[in-house]
């Protein structure tokens, strides 16, 4: 199977500048591409910094501003006290869950390595994340919030937010934003005239 296959039709930027994207979709994506203020509105500065690091690791995103955008999206949701419609009953309300778990993560770092999470080496940070995923963090600061469920919820939220950004969608070759005309050849490749057109297959 081919990895890192270039985009089938065009880059997201080319698509957005073309007539292939509807006005409604264009407006939403252009807005999302705007540089935004990433200062936290709900979390304190230390927790926000920690959350940004977690997002960077979970999403393997070395671009600090992209990871910070995801963290800022989470923070903005918490600031507005918005819900995605449900939560595990065993978990505290989302605001408390994030605030408690981020503090607990720092406490875990301090008790294991005598440093704040943010000051640890990448290896140690990753080791702690693996512990969190397995629910093996231990310590009484985790009594009020399940590390397993927190990891699951954080991973889901960060992933959903990350793949809502055009650069992430472009990386996986998603052309579904080209919605103005829809698609004609929708089956497997051998039955697709679209794919036989040199203009498309010869893109770099």
């Amino acid at each position: 199977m081919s990895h890192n296959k270039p985009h089938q039709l065009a880059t997201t930027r080319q698509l957005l500048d073309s007539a292939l994207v509807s006005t409604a979709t264009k407006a939403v994506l252009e807005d999302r591409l705007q540089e935004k203020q990433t200062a936290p509105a709900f979390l304190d500065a230390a927790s926000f910094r920690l959350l940004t690091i977690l997002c960077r690791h979970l999403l393997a995103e070395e671009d600090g501003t992209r990871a910070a955008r995801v963290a800022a999206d989470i923070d903005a949701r918490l600031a507005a006290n918005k819900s995605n419609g449900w939560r595990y009953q065993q978990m505290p309300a989302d605001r408390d869950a994030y605030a408690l778990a981020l503090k607990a993560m720092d406490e875990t770092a301090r008790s294991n390595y005598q440093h704040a999470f943010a000051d640890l080496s990448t290896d140690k940070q990753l080791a702690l994340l693996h512990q969190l995923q397995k629910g093996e963090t231990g310590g009484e600061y985790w009594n009020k919030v399940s590390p397993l469920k927190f990891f699951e919820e954080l991973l889901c939220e960060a992933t959903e937010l990350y793949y809502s950004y055009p650069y992430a969608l472009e990386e996986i070759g998603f052309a579904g934003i080209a919605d103005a005309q829809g698609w004609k050849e929708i089956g497997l490749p051998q039955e697709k005239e679209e794919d036989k057109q040199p203009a498309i297959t010869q893109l770099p």
Partner: protein
Amino acid sequence: MKTYANKEIVDAVVIGTGAGGSPLLAKLSAAGMKVVALEAGPYWNPAVDFASDEREQNKLYWPHERLSAGADPIIFGRNNSGTGVGGSTLHYTAYMPRPHPEDFMLYTEAGVSADWPLTYYDLERYYDELEWFLGISGPTPYPWGPARKRGYPLAALPLNAPAQLMEKGCRTLGIRTSPAANAALSAAYYQEPIGWRHACTNRGFCEAGCNNGAKASMDVTFIPLAVHHGAEIRPACFVTELEEDRSGRITAVAYLQNGKQQKQLCKWIFLCAGAIETPRLLLYNKMANSSNQVGRNFMAHTSLQLWGEFEEETHPYKGIPGGLISEDTLRPHGADFASGYLVQSIGVLPVTYASTLVRTTGLWGAALRERMQQYNHVAGINMHGDCLPQPGNFLALSDEQDDMGLPKPVVYFSNGDNEKRMAAHAKALMTRIWEAAGARHIWSNMRNAHTIGTCRMGTDPALSVVNSEGRSHDIPNLYICDNSIFPSALRVNPSLTIMALSLRTADLFLAHSKRLENASL
């Protein structure tokens, strides 16, 4: 649109405009009744308001927090609930299979779950009416189930890659498949007084809202019909209280409109808020619950999904996500469980796929990014199977308040042995289908889809909430019509049956109110 004053005693108030509320709303107004629909969500203009962007379209999902408990907590939000004029049909995939006659009689057949107080044949003419009114695309003849009076009005939609792959896998194994019946138009469709609706453009965003009216959601079908006949649709009206008089009839419906308390006087109430909000409202108002069955019998289909990556590019965002079906597993031979399931192909949008992937496999970091590179090679299949009611699966009010100031519902759900055995059977079969189709990296996620059964319909007032006509056993002018009244889960996607019940409820109600009128003359 016609409007009615709050103080005018209208003939009926319909609460909720989804699959259960909209058809009866249209039918009552066509019969000359003064009807007001109160809908908690907004009235969208899809051409302007709907973007091809999953995150933006989260606005179609019920935003008020629900608590999920039990061994298999139900994931709401994107999975199970909608809001807005049109309800959850705004984001349904629009698979529209009919149940089979035996699905309504599971107790008689296997001694489990419950028989319906009506049969397939009581709903048959409504299925037919709906298929032609909504403009369902599908194969004629349909390979499974009883012979039909006529076929589908439109040819089946073209198959996308996941549908073709499922066809290939099934063909190898000798399993019959067929293009599915889907409520998206394979050709432009004209309907008086609605006018023309566009053919589907294969944009693949059905679950995030169709922007051109090709998909038969209620806002482009029954709602315009109801408005044409004089119904008033009041969006952004969140119903909080039902007011009862001394005789035990409901006389008014109180609601919050943009934070302001309002009250509509009325003669009849049709509660169609879906299988979570309907019981929540009744429990909160301490009403219609002499049987103590409100909130009980919560069911959610056994709906395991199985995914794989293929050599070929699949572009799983192209075409309606719901393309191909097999009902050969209606009652699998030699099965160690009651009832059965169907199998359907599924396309998927990237955020939904990524979210399901990480929640199920726990993949993160470089491994996640790497795996997502294969998105354009992914295809899925899905089962929907029966779910048996159990005493431990129910909805109750929690002691937490939501952002509307109402107690949050808590929903307890655990799969029982029947669901687990059925899911294992389906997983084994679907794995073989996917292997035969050439899939690699197969993984599956057990999930439960559709929220069903919290205000069960039945003949015995001690064991059910509404009678076989959909009227409350306790409150003479209250009808309930949505997914909550199903006595058993049925083995198919629910919307066609919810709408059929809605049309039937309207007919039975009109006859009932005429009888009452004649008696009082």
